């Protein structure tokens, strides 16, 4: 249902200013979620949004904070509409700031339409279940945690781990397969460092086609309040490109940890009751309102695939940020510092990693008929390796049985040959699966419970 708004209203009657919150005297016609523009009095402007509209007060979140705002000079202009982003295909190839203003010295792009950045929930009846894989050329992902078009698959990393490289490798290698002309990448950076932003810009510019990439950059020194807006702008554009222009859009947003910090900061400023570790109780709902915007819908060409990345504070996967993310996303790729220090790139830690959508996207007629069982077998055997390693730590390797020694050998080879690959190495799925069989063939046949007799007959290397 179309909402009818009352038009622009102005006020300078401030009651309170603190942090990112401005409280004003009530004005008629102001509504919840309305966009506000502050004229500070020195010629500059700041954006804000109505958090509470009431007969006693109006509470506004100011995106760049209230520092420098004076109650005598500033004016608030209520714009009569929720926060909207102008979208068009012309935005591809452009760089914007965290609230959607161009920062690449080119003129404003022509706008096709203006869309509320909060979006609406996709009706589950309209969704199409994702079944087409996106080949990333990374064995640990393609074989073991397959990425599917329309999926949300986050990368859980830690500070100092190469998540940027992995994301970059996915961008490079995923974009070349499939119908390139219908592809697009939307990248939203929240609170990342300048050199990281430069790295991604470099990667994107050198990948096939910069003109298919849009970037929204909110860097570490940009206002944290803006970070709440940045991913919503990115997803709004992505939805438009996917569901109205038929493109397959890969959305990369991060660092989600910075986003959640902003959420907490804002919540504290509003005196809200905190839940775990001071994060607001609605953080799950808030994150879901971002992550759930990806998917495929019936009768439309395009898709939105989402790869959020985040740095786990202290590598703690049970920290609220990765925890709530994992409950919403369809799996997760977890990086391990231990593997990275062993010199393994990409250091993807398999036991906690998972792709929930892979089961329906792989196997006979989709990838290769042995793919599901091979993945299961590798998981199970690698889990056995972990157990035997801990045993060997105590009793010593010499004391192990022949079978256990075979498993250790398998484990080493699996990490060096299968997991490890070059930053520029783009493996086909066929190559990946063949390497998998090569390492599985180290194990005795009777240890491969997850594979069928026929598959062992066909692929097991007896030499």
């Amino acid at each position, binding site marked *: 249902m179309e909402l009818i708004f009352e038009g622009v209203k102005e006020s300078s009657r401030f009651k309170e200013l603190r942090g990112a919150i401005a409280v004003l005297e009530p004005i008629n016609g102001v509504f919840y*979620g309305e966009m506000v523009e502050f004229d500070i009095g020195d010629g500059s402007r700041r954006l804000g949004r109505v958090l509470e*509209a009431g007969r006693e007060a109006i509470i506004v979140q100011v995106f760049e904070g209230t520092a420098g705002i004076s109650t005598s000079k500033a004016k608030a202009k209520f714009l009569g509409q929720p926060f909207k982003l102008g979208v068009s295909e012309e935005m591809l190839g452009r760089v914007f700031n965290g609230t959607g203003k161009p920062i690449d010295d080119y003129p404003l792009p022509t706008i096709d339409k203006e869309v509320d950045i909060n979006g609406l929930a*996709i009706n589950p009846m309209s969704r199409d279940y994702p079944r087409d894989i996106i080949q990333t050329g990374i064995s640990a992902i393609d074989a073991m945690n397959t990425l599917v078009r329309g999926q949300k698959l986050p990368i859980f990393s830690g500070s100092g781990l190469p998540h940027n490289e992995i994301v970059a490798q996915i961008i490079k290698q995923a974009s070349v397969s499939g119908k390139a002309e219908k592809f697009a990448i939307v990248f939203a950076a929240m609170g990342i460092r300048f050199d990281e932003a430069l790295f991604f810009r470099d990667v994107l510019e050198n990948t096939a086609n910069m003109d298919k990439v849009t970037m929204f950059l909110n860097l570490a020194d940009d206002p944290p309040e803006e970070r709440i807006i940045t991913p919503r702008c990115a997803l709004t554009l992505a939805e438009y490109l996917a569901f109205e222009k038929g493109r397959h859009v890969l959305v990369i947003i991060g660092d989600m940890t910075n986003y959640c910090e902003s959420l907490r900061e804002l919540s504290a400023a509003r005196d809200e009751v905190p839940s775990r570790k001071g994060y607001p109780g609605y953080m799950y*709902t808030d994150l879901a309102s971002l992550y759930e915007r990806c998917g495929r819908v019936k009768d439309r060409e395009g898709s939105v695939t989402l790869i959020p990345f985040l740095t786990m504070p202290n590598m703690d996967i049970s920290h609220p940020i990765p925890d709530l993310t994992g409950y919403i996303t369809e799996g997760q790729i977890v990086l391990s510092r231990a593997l990275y220090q062993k010199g393994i790139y990409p250091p993807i830690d398999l036991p906690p990693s998972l792709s929930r959508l892979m089961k329906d996207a792989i196997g006979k007629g989709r990838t290769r008929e042995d793919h599901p069982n091979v993945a299961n077998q590798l998981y199970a055997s690698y889990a056995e390796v972990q157990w035997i390693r801990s045993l060997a730590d105590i009793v010593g390797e010499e004391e192990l049985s022949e079978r256990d020694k075979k498993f250790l050998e398998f484990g080493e080879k699996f990490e060096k040959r299968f997991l490890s690959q070059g930053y520029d190495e783009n493996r086909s799925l066929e190559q990946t699966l063949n390497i998998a069989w090569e390492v599985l063939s180290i194990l005795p046949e009777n240890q491969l419970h997850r594979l069928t007799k026929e598959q062992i007959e066909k692929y097991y290397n007896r030499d």
Partner: protein
Amino acid sequence: MRGYVWSVNGPVVIAGGLSTSPVGNQVSVGRAGLVGEIVGIRGDKAVIQVYEDTTGISPGDEIEDKGYPLSVELGPGLLGNIFDGIQRPLKDIRQACGIFVENGVQTQSLSRERMWAFTPQVREGDVVGPGHIIGEVEETSLIKHRILLPPDIKGKVLWVASEGKYRLEDIVVKIDLGSKEIALPMYHRWPVRKKRPVLKRLRPNVPLITGQRVIDFLFPVAVGGVAAIPGGFGTGKTITQHQLAKWASADIIIYIGCGERGNEITQVLEEFPELQDPRTGRPLIERTIIIANTSNMPVAAREASVYTGITMAEYFRDQGYSVALMADSTSRWAEALREIAGRLEMMPAEEGYPAYLASRLGEFYERAGYAEALSGKRGSITVIGAVSPPGGDFSEPVTMHTKRFVRTFWALDKRLAGQRHFPSINWIDSYSGYVDDLTDWWRENVKGADWGQLRTRIMALLQEADRLERVAQLIGVDALPDSQRLVIEIARLVRFGFLQQNAYSSDSFSSPEKGLKIIDLILFFYDSAKELLDVGIHVLTIIEMEEFAQIMRLKEEISNDKLEEFDRFRERLDEAFREIGAKYGVNI
């Protein structure tokens, strides 16, 4: 009654002019007509929670009190349908606004156009009481929908519609209440937060057969019982819930997707029409109602979705059906309570949850049960609630409180999930309080071995193996005596060959008889192997037997209808043991 918006903050609206409206009444907010509910009165203001996004609502906007509490429509047309948290059919929403769910969509919960073939079950002059069956409608080929008198009506039948086709709103019966007469259509409304009355509650004593061996054999739940399934993300809560929705031996399945993933609901929507009920051969969707409130749909509707679902379950129980209700996940519901309580500025208890969390959970789980309904028929509601504890930590408030109200607890284990051991139900931390009540049923209904005794043996074996493995980790497996190594190996056999079950293979549903055959075979192997050990044969000789590895694959290779193959395998196994014995010069 009419009021106006005083202030708005997310899903909470404070209203003026409604201070005399009863708490619980449904309201319509603003020009868009957003659905809301009065949750409290403070001074001269009413506090309203709104089930839709409130962007665009402004102080002064009109609010209309509908005059009745938040209710659902109960009548033909429920089955096979998919609703949002406040019973709006998502199919109609899609027709009205396309891909997305827009605000303020007005739809009818049940179709007013569809014709139903009605057969009366009462005659003029009959005296009928609350919940009495008036007539029947064949809603799907599986379920005869019994049209019930609302639980608060009793009187004499003045007139009843003759057999024929009627629409939902057509009058099918007129009742003389004594003081006045009323005419009733095929459906009635019932407030979701009020539990429907029953004649008598009964003790559950029949197992809910789920086709999942670890549940049916180790941690069963009774028909009319309550179970919780807690687990961190990636431990397979949703897949287990889907498995139960597919295969559980209930007449009706109500699946509440509460604050979970959109794609998972879509998966159910795609799969269920194609899957067959193993007992009737009809598409599963014909016995299923889905309530979907995905994580990005409004939070207040998430809170309501659980009540909407359980009220529908009660309605079918009152018709004499056994209903299994899956709520995935109750933690999201609890979080919705927390979020709304926070916006209402209520004093938080543990982890920011409101102090009434435990009583709400208790109220919900107590609506489950096996009962004699007002209609005189016996029906049941089995509730299976998923819990998503933050960080997989079972000591958090929702898991802790849930434990107080459920009798079966399936603890999902991250470590097992990492090994791709599914269902990842941990056999040490899980429990079932129904075991003693169900032993008789197994004895009377499933031929073969003694279920209670088998269960005790497997549990003891698994516990023992668990202890020994910890010892082995310290001193090495080789340092254990052969008899103890055998225990570890047999436990592996139980884990891989029996407990582990692939949801995506032919083993997805395992009949009780098949489960019995497998476990019987494993225990036979164990007993024979022990005999060999006793005469000095080395444990490695036994576990290197070809049959040892083969047993692990039998669950996949032998289907539910070819159970005699287990007997043939058992003969081969017996033969193999004799051969080994002969080689070492002993007779067994």
